[in-house]
């Protein structure tokens, strides 16, 4: 029984990082109708900021902080220069942010080269789980991810900012007639979404190879999580992230990663076919 624990923990840490990425995507999509194809690259930039911070000898925590702040500022710039011109034009946002993702990737290649970079884990200790030992950093990553997910839920469900944000998601025009500056709210939410991606990239950097293609590995499962989860903009991401991340991560234990990804796609197609509104959305009425 105990031998199943390490892969379960690995799956949990993957699920939690995936939820962080998908939450950022969902906030931006749910509120503004923007499908941000560059979200994976913002995640990647977060990891590269961590690479730079570590090469400068800065503490890991400072690196995480800088990643969040710099990617958040990059999000602000992207919103002001690009996204605000194409709100509500969903198809245009796909093209524009796809172009942006290519530009960001090539920018990273120009600065760092195409080869992978590595980030040293700040904690090399392990924790004993019976006869197995498990890296302490992975447990820390899970704790940090849970805290960030909890913070995001608190922000959107329990604060005045969250109340206005949910109102704008539900009825943007009505919210505006009550004096709510929807544009400003869009901008702040976009920055929150990108900041989450940056922090997730920095946190996961010690566990994966940091390269210009790394964003894609989280972007596609992130979108799948939103599709599979459905329903409420936040709760659906939890269900979708758990289903997509859990299936992918656990299957990788027994079958090849490519076969696991195919299985995840089949699972996603089945869920969307049988429950078009997603796992939490129920069946579409006849």
């Amino acid at each position, binding site marked *: 029984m105990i031998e199943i624990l390490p892969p379960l923990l690995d799956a949990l840490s993957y699920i939690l990082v995936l939820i962080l990425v998908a939450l950022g995507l969902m906030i931006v999509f749910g509120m503004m109708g923007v499908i941000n194809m560059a979200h994976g690259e913002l995640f990647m930039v977060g990891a590269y900021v961590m690479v730079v911070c570590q090469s400068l000898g800065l503490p890991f925590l400072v690196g995480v902080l800088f990643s969040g702040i710099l990617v958040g500022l990059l999000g602000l710039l992207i919103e002001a220069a690009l996204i605000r011109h194409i709100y509500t034009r969903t198809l245009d946002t796909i093209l524009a942010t796809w172009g942006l993702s290519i530009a960001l990737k090539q920018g990273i290649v120009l600065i760092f080269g195409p080869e992978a970079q590595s980030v040293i884990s700040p904690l090399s200790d392990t924790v004993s789980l019976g006869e197995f030992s498990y890296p302490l950093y992975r447990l820390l990553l899970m704790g940090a991810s849970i805290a960030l997910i909890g913070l995001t839920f608190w922000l959107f469900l329990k604060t005045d900012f969250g109340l206005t944000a*949910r*109102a704008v998601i539900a009825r943007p*025009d009505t919210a505006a007639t*009550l*004096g*709510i500056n929807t544009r400003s709210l869009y901008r702040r939410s976009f920055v929150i979404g990108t900041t989450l991606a940056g922090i997730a990239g920095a946190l996961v950097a010690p566990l994966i190879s940091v390269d210009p293609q790394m964003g894609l590995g989280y972007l596609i499962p992130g979108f799948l999580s939103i599709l599979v989860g459905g329903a409420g903009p936040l709760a659906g991401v939890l269900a979708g992230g758990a289903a997509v991340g859990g299936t992918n991560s656990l299957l990788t234990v027994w079958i090849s990663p490519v076969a696991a990804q195919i299985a995840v796609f089949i699972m996603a197609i089945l869920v969307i076919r049988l429950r078009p509104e997603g796992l939490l959305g129920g069946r579409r009425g006849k």
Partner: protein
Amino acid sequence: MLEISNLNAGYGEVTVLRNFSCRIETGQVTALMGRNGMGKTTLMKSIMGLIPVKSGTIHLNGIQINGKETYKISRAGIGYVPQGREVFEQFTVAENLRLAALGSSLSNLDRLPQIHDWFPILKERHDQKAGTFSGGQQQVLAIARALMTGPEILLLDEPTEGIQPNIVHEISLQLARIARETGLTILVVEQNVDMVRTMADHILFMENGQLADQCSAEELRSDETLIHRYLSI
């Protein structure tokens, strides 16, 4: 005072309002009547900046508001109760009202006791989700929510649509009381003649996107010709 001059507005290439002009006097309850499709809702949406104005001007107390963003028009002092109420169904009554204060000014939360006095049901059910309310109760909430923004002028778009007659009468009496007590200016789009008779001081009639006629409440009571002509009833 709300002054609309030579307003042209519509949707895309379609022009609905054609050189519409009118004055809504401060402290008066003005009713705007007309058959479906004459441009009443388009006028309301144009005032709120929800659809673009092609030409003409809208002034509130001498300040031009057309061309401004909707939230700025709201903060300039125009409260809006949209057609179909559009309350936030997933939010509680308290959250719906708080939202209006967050949009306008947090100091408007001080208006809550007054709102509860006018509409006691909102105090009794302040933790109840708006989606569980009946149509009439949702309308009361939508009106209260607009009043929470502390408006100088309140726009109501067909507040009686789909509501039981006894509730319609209650809402009319309450709005008339609020206007009398606070001096609030009201512009109400309405096809319900009883409601207009109960609360309006002045009546405008709209036809094909233009102001076709107007009369006082007394004139409406003594002569129903205008009602027959412009509402076909």
